């Protein structure tokens, strides 16, 4: 297997700088405003040079780098940008995997376990479908890199290696504008000088490596597998294999998650609940219509509000039952707007629907079909049951007796004889 890895260092900053050219060369800090109690999500090279680190409080970042440009976190924008990268790669190869999150989250600079998402994004491409020799793969990968740079104006670090882990590690040390190629059989040689923090190890294991003086993967690879396994268990064995360039994991193909989006920009900014609700109603009417045209329902509604002071508030609603109803979604939007206390006008509102499933029928009470009063209803029901019993025998119609306190789902109801 030959795998290409496209690693985007400081992806969030790259996206922000792409969308706003005036940020180029400035110390950019993404995460929020300095007075907010939030951590630094990502920072540009210039900000890192001042000592700003991912995961540190924004206030602390401000004291270190007061001239920094502080930007709010717009997760939707970054997700869209990364989806565009993956879609471009998926046009070039049938097997594309999104990210190596486990590695990133544990080895990210500054804040392991701080709850901050990865600094860089990476994508893997399986080359066996496209290239037959090393020249072909190099040309292919180079072409994709240029496509990403020209079409999306993002700058990945690119590597090609025999497996995922080696490709990922090689991309971390690859130079900008170049492709690092690790030939088959050269994995161990390449990894021996790389730091052990590249390994997907737990924080505790990394601390123990540090205490034992194991700083490079070559040191770990030189130990006997039995000793590593004895000291670090299954995790140690896995890390030993990785440090020897053995990674048997396969690429998990990425597939695009469909979404429906609608947004409205308020000019002048909306200040009243009535204005927001009216616009929300219009957006939801459109979304509901699109859902119904596709014969689908959704399970998730995301509401994003952008304020004039650059704040972004986001709320995700998970529906208990899949719905395409405008009224249901509007009820959730109203509930959210009622509960929120905003002091700043809203400049933009975005509504996103995800988690689609096929439209299905709803269970209704048997009595709902009878509208001629209870007596008539009782008579109709008795006659229907009598006909069913004549046709299919006794016991064919039962009454459901609900037992809501039952622990086991199968005991939560029972059937009894229907007696009118």
């Amino acid at each position, binding site marked *: 297997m030959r795998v290409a890895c496209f690693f985007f260092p400081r992806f969030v900053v790259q996206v922000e700088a792409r969308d706003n050219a005036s940020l180029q060369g400035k110390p950019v800090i993404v995460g929020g405003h300095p007075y907010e109690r939030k951590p630094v999500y990502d920072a540009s090279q210039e900000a890192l040079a001042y000592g700003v680190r991912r995961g540190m409080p924004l206030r602390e970042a401000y004291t270190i780098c007061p001239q920094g440009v502080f930007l709010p976190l717009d997760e939707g924008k970054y997700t869209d940008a990364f989806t565009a990268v993956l879609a471009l790669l998926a046009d070039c190869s049938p097997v594309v995997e999104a990210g190596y999150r486990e590695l990133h989250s544990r080895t990210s600079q500054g804040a392991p376990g701080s709850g901050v998402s990865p600094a860089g994004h990476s994508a893997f491409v399986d080359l066996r479908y496209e290239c037959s020799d090393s020249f072909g793969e190099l040309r292919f990968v180079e072409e994709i890199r240029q496509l990403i740079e020209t079409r999306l104006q993002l700058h990945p670090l690119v590597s090609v290696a025999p497996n995922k882990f080696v490709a990922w590690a090689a991309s971390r040390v690859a130079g900008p504008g170049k492709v690092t190629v690790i030939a088959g059989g050269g994995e161990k040689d390449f990894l021996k000088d790389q730091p052990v923090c590249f390994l997907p190890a737990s924080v505790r294991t990394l601390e123990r490596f540090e205490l034992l003086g194991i700083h490079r993967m070559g040191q770990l690879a030189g130990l006997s597998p039995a000793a590593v396994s004895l000291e670090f268990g299954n995790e140690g064995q896995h890390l030993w294999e990785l440090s020897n360039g053995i990674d048997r994991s396969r690429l998990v193909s990425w*597939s695009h998650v469909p979404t429906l989006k609608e947004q409205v920009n308020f000019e002048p900014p909306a200040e009243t609940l009535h204005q927001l609700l009216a616009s929300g109603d219009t957006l939801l009417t459109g979304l509901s219509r699109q859902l119904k045209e596709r014969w689908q329902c959704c399970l998730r509604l995301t509401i994003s509000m952008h304020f004039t002071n650059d704040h972004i508030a986001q709320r995700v609603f998970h529906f208990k039952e899949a719905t395409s109803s405008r009224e249901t979604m509007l009820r959730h939007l109203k509930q959210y707007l009622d509960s929120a206390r905003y002091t700043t006008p809203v400049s933009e509102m975005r509504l996103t629907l995800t988690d*689609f*499933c096929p439209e*299905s029928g*709803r269970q209704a009470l048997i009595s709902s079909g009878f509208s001629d009063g209870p007596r008539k209803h009782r008579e109709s029901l008795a006659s229907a049951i009598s006909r069913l019993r004549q046709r299919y025998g006794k016991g064919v119609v039962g009454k459901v007796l609900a037992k809501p306190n039952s*622990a*086991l*789902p*199968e005991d*939560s109801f029972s059937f009894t004889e229907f007696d009118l």
Partner: protein
Amino acid sequence: MSKLFREAIKLEVEEDTQHKPIAFLYKRRREQVRETLKRWRIVQGWWKRPVMREYFQVRTASGTVYELYRDLLTGAWRLQRVYD
């Protein structure tokens, strides 16, 4: 809406080392688990009917939500409910 199976259906489940489902076969189709929405245990005393189950409510790659459980007494996997 959901369909609850009174007689839970026996399933072939691919599980990880912590006995979390990765994928399972249902109606001759392989359902890849995308996320676990809920996880809980039900333990019922021997004086009623001894039951020890670990339930998982999962969403699969196809978007359907399933409720399956692992019988901790026998190790067998069963499908209890399908949400549509």
